[in-house]
């Protein structure tokens, strides 16, 4: 388009003013709903900002650097009871185990549900099972988990006890946290694959590529943002959960390791996470050191908010034109989903 002659550009016409419309001309029911939308929307914003501000004001005052590096210890005096290093590590371990188990299995399941789903009855059963799993309260999942992991033959996951297995360890908790996160990852993968138009699969097929090559090299790369979004949502679910920690992690003050093998010992041992730490130090729990509860809750909130921000960034991507590592992928996904122009 280099040789197009440039003629003097006409002055662009002025934009028309927006059409005037009065809410008073609407039917009454529409007006009520309209104001309700405003009230609930603003109300939600107020509540969200309130929580963040409240935790910020309450938490930041008690937040000391040494809280991050000291292990908690049992003491009635606040100066002696240590920090929350162990709960932070506990949260990290549980999240890592849960994500490491849930992400590959969830993505594989999402791919199978979308691309293979044969036999049909099995796909239907699997789909409903995932829905059920997504709806099960985590405390029910935790109790069911305890029933299973306290079987003697699973004692390698935790400490053995005279009755069989203690059933409380990072491994046990992480595995059932994975069940909590998996439905989110399956749903994200499945929904994203359903959005990919069939002509992309056909094009690959017509080039003599097998279905698995198509999935690995065309489909999965194109839905990467959705998968990442699902994984991060699952991580948020794991970090925020208390019930499974209470039942399956043992709730010891420090991360107690089992045996002398360094990493395996910790994984088989008991411990606590930030959520359980907050609960036990809050006025509702036993620790009765609410300053530390507030400080830990603040840290927890910050972690979850950070994850939320990451999800938003990944799934929405950046505006077209912005150059960043995720923009390439997100633009691609938008273009597949919509008709190419």
């Amino acid at each position, binding site marked *: 388009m280099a040789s197009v002659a440039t003629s003097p550009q006409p002055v662009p016409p002025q934009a028309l003013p927006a059409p005037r419309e009065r809410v008073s001309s609407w039917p009454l029911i529409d007006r009520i709903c309209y104001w309700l939308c405003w009230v609930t929307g603003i109300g939600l914003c107020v509540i969200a900002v309130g929580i963040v501000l409240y935790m910020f004001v309450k938490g930041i005052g008690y937040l000391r650097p040494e809280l991050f590096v000291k292990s908690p210890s049992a003491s009635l005096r606040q100066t002696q009871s240590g920090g929350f290093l162990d709960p932070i590590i506990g949260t990290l371990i549980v999240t890592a185990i849960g994500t490491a188990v849930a992400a590959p299995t969830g993505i594989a399941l999402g791919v199978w549900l979308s691309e293979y789903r044969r036999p049909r009855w099995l796909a239907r059963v699997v789909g409903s099972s995932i829905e059920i799993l997504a709806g099960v309260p985590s405390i029910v999942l935790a109790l069911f988990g305890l029933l299973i992991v306290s079987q003697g033959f699973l004692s390698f996951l935790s400490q053995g006890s005279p009755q069989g297995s203690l059933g409380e360890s990072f491994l046990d908790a992480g595995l059932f946290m994975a069940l909590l996160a998996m439905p989110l990852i399956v749903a994200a993968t499945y929904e994203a694959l359903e959005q990919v138009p069939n002509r992309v699969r*056909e*094009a690959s097929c017509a080039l003599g*590529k097998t279905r698995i090559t198509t999935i690995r090299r065309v489909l999965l*790369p194109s839905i990467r943002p959705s998968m990442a979004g699902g994984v991060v949502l699952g991580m948020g679910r794991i970090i925020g959960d208390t019930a499974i920690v209470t039942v399956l992690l043992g709730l010891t003050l420090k991360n107690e390791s089992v045996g002398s093998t360094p990493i395996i010992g910790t994984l088989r041992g008991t411990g606590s996470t930030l959520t359980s730490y907050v609960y036990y130090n809050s006025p509702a729990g036993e620790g009765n050191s609410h300053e530390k509860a507030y400080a830990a809750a603040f840290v927890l909130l910050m972690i979850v908010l950070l994850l939320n921000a990451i999800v938003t960034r990944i799934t929405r991507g950046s505006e077209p034109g912005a150059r960043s590592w995720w923009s390439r992928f997100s633009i691609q996904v938008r*273009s597949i989903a919509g008709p190419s122009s």
Partner: protein
Amino acid sequence: MDPLMPPPIRRIVVDRDPNVAPPTASNGGGAATALAGPRKRRPASTPALVQERMRLESVWLAYGSNWVVRDVSMTVRQGEVLALIGASGSGKTTLLRSLNRLTEVTEGAARSGRITLDDADIHEVEVNELRRRVTMVFQQPNPFPMTIFDNVAYALAERNGRRRRRRTPGIEAAVEDALRRAGLYEEVAGDLDRSALALSGGQQQRLCIARALAAKPEVLLLDEPCSALDPISTATIEELIVQLRETIAIVIVTHNLQQAFRVADEVAFMHLGELVEYGSSEQVFDHPRQQRTRDYISGDFG
């Protein structure tokens, strides 16, 4: 002039720079120049070697209980372009898709009769190998959401199953060769790492052709490749088809009679699943044997 003659063919001159408007002809053809010369865009020399590649023997195709192709027999030869013409719903696309067994992706598709590729029944050829040898370009440009380079490299047969993002000189040469053959290389050479979806529609379609060529096919199936494109892109692709037929057997489905007239050596006219007329382009367009063909070509079909 014979009233049954097809409408005069207008040819848009495409040279090195398609953006420059050609000199207006004396009869005032606007941007398009009506050529008074040969009606066909065929190069002066017909290919030396015309060789039979695929053969269809009384092929019937059905979706469920619905017959869409009835008893079609024809031959696909290298060195010639075979055009399938006919109204919508006449089974052209289905017939085309059956040539590399892509119909079988649709559920409930059934086939009887025999299709051979180099005298081997296509049911005895491994299906992915068959589809590599008989590749297809679709009506809608459908590049993968990757870079231009990856789009073509993906199709290279020798890279099947290998890890991506490994660029060897061999692969780069093969990608460049495919892009050149599709007439796209000059336009995209500067930035092969751009997303393929940022290309224009005509460029995307030529990328799809480059991708199909990268698989080193023996037969190329084109399903209305120009229906979504503007005349200039169409002319580029038609030029390309005429060049490619030397090395590859080409079957093209088209709604556009003039396009069939311009590119085809052999024409098959289908109606409601039946092969009404099949013969050389001259014969079908100039001296159709069947009344239905005559009606369709002259435009009073109904």
